[in-house]
């Protein structure tokens, strides 16, 4: 077992793919000479050359579409969109082309592209640079959406992604790059899509998250332990495909469930997850399935204001106390 940061786990997965498959190329804004805006592709340009590490103009619709076209014609492109906020410029390409080409062509064409992008707020970048659209993309049939929260999942999901023939959004939370964790030495270690992972076992309440909200849930679980409440924490890991069964089974055991996410609470993907749990585990519930999302405001710049908008462990503790008296 080696200990790596989440950033290095992604780099490792990308290197493996570059080494193993000449069809893999990496393209995006400043992935080459600049080493990547979040330094994930550091040194790649020197190692693999500019024919496979392609710096693009700031032209999201253009280069994401080009990645999709290249995927249709036999390449396995990894396209980096610097942040998920900029994916809006390429949303026509992602939603109308990548997600639909296989179905609409009757299965004749496919778009095996991996779109890596950075999601989440909390870094003082204000309203246009602090959004979390992974849940929105997960509502679109034809896409697969991955949200690794730990280095082992970051690597394992990426390995699986390279074997998949569908368009994939691989969403890296901006504040998780330095999270450290053990990586299995076994090079055949992979993480399947559509299989949630229980990151903490517990018997009194189930906390569900994805991306950074898993870490928030784990912090809340530690605090709940001080109140003698034993929380189970489940990491969705992939939003589409979505593993509802693990959530149902956990909730049937704990009788209480809270779904936590960082995007705006209104219309959040987590509210759909909460609906599925209450529908399927209704008879075992001691109260409503709770959904905690971000505050419905454009992300403010000032630190004291921004921290008011993103769910933290105290939000979870307050909600659990108020609703369940725990």
């Amino acid at each position, binding site marked *: 077992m080696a200990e790596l940061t989440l950033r290095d786990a992604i780099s490792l997965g990308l290197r493996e793919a570059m080494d193993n498959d000449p*069809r893999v*190329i990496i393209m995006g804004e400043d992935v080459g000479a600049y080493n990547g805006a979040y330094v994930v592709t550091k040194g790649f340009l020197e190692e693999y050359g500019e*024919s496979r590490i*392609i710096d*693009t*103009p700031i*032209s999201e*619709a*253009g*280069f*994401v*579409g*080009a*990645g*999709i*076209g*290249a*995927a*249709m*014609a*036999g*390449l396995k*492109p990894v396209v980096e969109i610097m942040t998920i906020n900029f994916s809006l410029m390429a949303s*026509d*390409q992602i939603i*109308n*082309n990548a997600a639909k*080409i*296989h*179905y*609409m*062509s*009757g*299965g*004749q*064409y*496919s778009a*095996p592209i991996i779109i890596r992008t950075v999601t989440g707020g909390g870094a003082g970048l204000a309203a246009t640079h602090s959004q979390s659209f992974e849940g929105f993309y997960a509502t679109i*049939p*034809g896409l*697969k959406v991955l949200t690794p929260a730990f280095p082992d999942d970051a690597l394992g999901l990426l390995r699986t992604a390279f074997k998949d*023939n*569908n368009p994939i959004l691989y969403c890296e939370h901006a504040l998780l790059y330095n999270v450290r964790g053990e990586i299995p030495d076994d090079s055949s270690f992979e993480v399947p899509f559509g299989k949630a992972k229980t990151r903490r076992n517990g018997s009194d309440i189930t906390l569900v998250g994805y991306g950074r909200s898993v870490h928030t849930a784990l912090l809340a679980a530690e605090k709940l332990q001080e109140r003698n409440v034993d929380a189970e924490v489940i990491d969705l890991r992939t939003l589409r495909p979505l593993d509802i069964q693990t959530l149902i089974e956990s909730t049937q055991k704990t009788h209480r469930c809270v779904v936590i996410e960082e995007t705006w609470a209104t219309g959040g993907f987590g509210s759909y997850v909460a609906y599925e749990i209450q529908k399927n585990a209704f008879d075992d519930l001691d109260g409503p399935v709770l959904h905690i999302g971000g505050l419905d405001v454009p992300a403010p710049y000032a630190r004291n204001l921004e921290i008011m908008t993103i769910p933290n462990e105290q939000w979870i503790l307050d909600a659990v106390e108020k609703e369940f008296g725990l």
Partner: protein
Amino acid sequence: MQVLEKTEIQPSELLNLYRDMKIIRLFEEKCSQLYMQGKIRGFLHLYIGEEAIAVGLASALNEDDHIITHYRDHGHALARGLEPRAIMAELCGKATGTSFGRGGSMHIFDASKNFAGGHAIVGGHLPLAAGLALAAKQLNEDRIVVCFFGDGALNQGEFHETMNLASVWKLPVLFFLENNFYGMGSHIDRTFAGGSKVHTIADRYKIPNSRIDGMDVLAVREASIDAIAKIRKTSKPYLLEAVTYRFQGHSMADPVTYRDRDEVDKWRPRDPIALLKEMLLEAGHASEKLIGRLDEEANLTVEDATQFAESSPDPDPNDLTKNIYA
């Protein structure tokens, strides 16, 4: 690789060009009837008047080359050699259609003919064209990409982004502008600030370009042969503008309130099929009798396709969710 030389065209080839244009004309007229009868649903955009472009270009292209196009795509598909039966069945939403009834009129695909669609978001397929070319280049394949688009796409960001990418990355793409003067009902003079020499917009991207008479199938063929030879030789893009006119409305839903009868009448003598027929008769390449035989051949092709489509089964409801994922 087969590089077509611009040689004297054989009379037999001229007759093929005539027949192929006639097939498209009759096919479109049949579509119009079927639409009125409610057998074709959704939007239906007819190619009547523009046949010389698809046929002229297709006669200059290799089988390995990619074609990608917009939603007025029946003509391109027929000229490329897709089965008329399968195209008509797709329009009728049948299981035997090119996409097994998943795409309809605007989304005709045939991977076996390197026909990468039929795309219905104006300008949205242009980045895909760059990607198809990028893959060909990366895989050292000797193929080029032909990307049809209309004057309506000129004002989309994706057009400009793709022109820039194709030039910066030296991609073998023939950008084929079908200028019929109208983006739906808005005349290009009211929507485009780039002046009347529309093709010269490519100058800003250092992409060589020229304009041709899109009603003259031989002019289209010769210009296509020239442009394609240049692209193969330099592996750089080229833009061709074919000036043309659609004799019908934008779609079947169009009452054509935005142009007067006189304008249409002025274009009538420029009908590309009538022009070629006249030339064939005058040059002694064909008799009225032979033309009549070609017309009948075209008619039989369309009747056969229609009969096939109408007698084909609907798609199996059990397959509704097939091909969402590869």
